[in-house]
């Protein structure tokens, strides 16, 4: 069989400058990048709070279960967009987190199994409802799993005479909400994540904070999955924060680095997708994971290669010297 090379030769002119060659093409590229960056920013910011407290897989669960919320919202209102969908998704996220905690607290089922049970069940119910009662709509489970960035870019709305993709508008709003919530409730989020018992003693309502975080996360997921799909949302929730976590010891810096890593993944990912003629969201995730691998190997403090080098040279003063390590 005569097939083109699996990996086409890379050409700077075509693959890097090509997407910006004419105003129309450039506008398309710009909005694709903007949408992907916004996905990376809003998911990444929330992802930071998930991975520092070991909740990454609850994020995974929520990214699947929002489907049920969307379908139920559709059955109630007949709409697949707008407020109804956001509210439906937000509530589902909170319900998911509550159910997981409920199952694991009130039975002998461990938390990991509880997560697995809740997310597969709710997702399955969502798919069944979608197939039996809400069929023939512009949404299918495919879209939830994969996203449909190309389609999302065509679905535009005019703002001040400029055609802007709807999902970019929605993502801008959600990112703004996420960023301001983090700014306003930073101390509550911080204490609840670090030491929930202290938060409870201080009267900071760690459970409320946690469910609020889950609700926000669902908003971010539902706004993002049209563009990148549920499973790749998970990647943007975990990969950039994990990269940042290996590079810094401060939460504020970690949030900042997450944004940087996310935006780089989006920009490079769009070009890689163009080069390979493959799905943009997938390429973005691959770049994000590539960045993580770099941090994993070369992070100044926690990198694997750096650690090996340090052990090899043995001339670094070990940190433990200045510490009185107790028995």
């Amino acid at each position, binding site marked *: 069989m005569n097939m083109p090379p699996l990996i086409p030769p890379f050409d700077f002119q075509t693959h890097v400058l090509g997407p910006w060659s004419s105003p129309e093409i450039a506008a398309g590229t710009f909005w694709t990048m903007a949408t992907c960056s916004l996905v990376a920013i809003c998911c990444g910011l929330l992802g930071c709070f998930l991975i*520092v*407290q*070991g909740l990454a897989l609850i994020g995974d669960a929520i990214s699947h279960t929002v489907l049920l919320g969307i379908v139920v919202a559709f059955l109630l209102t007949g709409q697949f967009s707008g407020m109804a969908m956001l509210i439906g998704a937000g509530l589902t996220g909170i319900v998911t987190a509550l159910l997981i905690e409920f199952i694991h607290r009130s039975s002998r089922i461990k938390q990991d199994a509880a997560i697995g049970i809740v997310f597969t069940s709710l997702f399955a119910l969502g798919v069944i409802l979608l197939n039996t009662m809400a069929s023939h709509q512009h949404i299918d489970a495919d879209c939830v799993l994969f996203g449909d960035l190309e389609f999302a870019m065509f679905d535009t709305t005019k703002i001040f005479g400029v055609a802007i993709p709807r999902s970019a508008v929605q993502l801008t709003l959600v990112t703004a909400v996420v960023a301001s919530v983090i700014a*306003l409730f*930073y*101390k*509550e989020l*911080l*204490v609840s*994540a*670090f*030491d929930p*018992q*202290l938060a*409870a*003693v*201080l*009267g*900071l309502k760690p459970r409320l904070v946690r469910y609020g975080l889950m609700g926000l996360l669902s908003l971010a997921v539902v706004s993002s999955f049209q563009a990148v799909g549920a499973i790749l949302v998970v990647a943007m929730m975990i990969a950039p924060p994990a990269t940042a*976590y290996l590079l*810094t*010891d*401060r*939460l504020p*810096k*970690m949030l900042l680095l997450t944004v940087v890593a996310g935006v780089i993944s989006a920009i490079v990912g769009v070009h890689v997708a163009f080069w390979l003629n493959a799905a943009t969201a997938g390429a973005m995730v691959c770049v994000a994971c590539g960045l993580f691998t770099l941090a994993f190997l070369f992070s100044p403090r926690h990198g694997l290669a750096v650690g090996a080098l340090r052990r090899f040279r043995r001339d670094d003063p070990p*940190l433990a010297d200045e*510490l*009185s*390590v*107790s*028995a």
Partner: protein
Amino acid sequence: MIPQGEQGSADEGRPNLPDSSLGADRPLPLSVRSLTVSYDRKAVLWNVDLDVFAGRIVGVVGPNGAGKTTLIKAIMGLLPLQSGTILINGKPLKKQPGAIGYVPQRESVDWDFPVTVHDVVMMGTYGTLGLFRRPGRKQREICRRSLDQVHMSSYAHRQISNLSGGQQQRVFLARALAQEADLYLMDEPFAGVDAATEAAIIELLRTQRDTGRTILVIHHDLQSVADYFDDVLLLNRHVVAYGPVGDVFTVENLRTTYGGKLAVLPEHANGET
């Protein structure tokens, strides 16, 4: 029904105290009545009655699984009670968040969390700050003072995983100090810390006590009980004995607490029999 030490303290669940330490009208910092807490329908704490007086350091001593941590968590309102009441300064804790300063076991938090020593101590002030308010000059001052008191000022900007066990414990103490509470609950503050830190901590607890604060400390090392504490609570699911160390910390009571199998008895325990 109230468990008493072999010495037979007079009042129900109250230690024999010098009269001077009894504040006339002030409500007790901590008063627990017939507290029963169960996990999975089995009682972990059973009919606990306890009155703690202001300005005392109380050691909570008992075998593993005796319910010591459960007691502290119940006092902090983190557990559902099967029965009983707990009053802090005469009122339920719910009406006065932040009334308890809390030093958890070191393992209870993730020391890889991306925060610095200063950030952790600052958390102690969050309870009084209120929504949307950010820590300001006053909070930074409290934070600085608390760090000074535990001699950790020079480590303020270090990430918390780069600390020794003793230093981590001091950070928790500083955070509790920053809470500026009247009642402190500490879960094994001496576990896994070096001797210097241990001495520094007990010194600090004494200065705090002398300013009228009340401190409840879960403790494992029977040898140092007599030196460190004013009162001791011997706990094994129920209160075996409670009162001033001199009266209560006896070989007989320790046997009753730890079962007949207590091998090593502390030298300082009173009433050799």
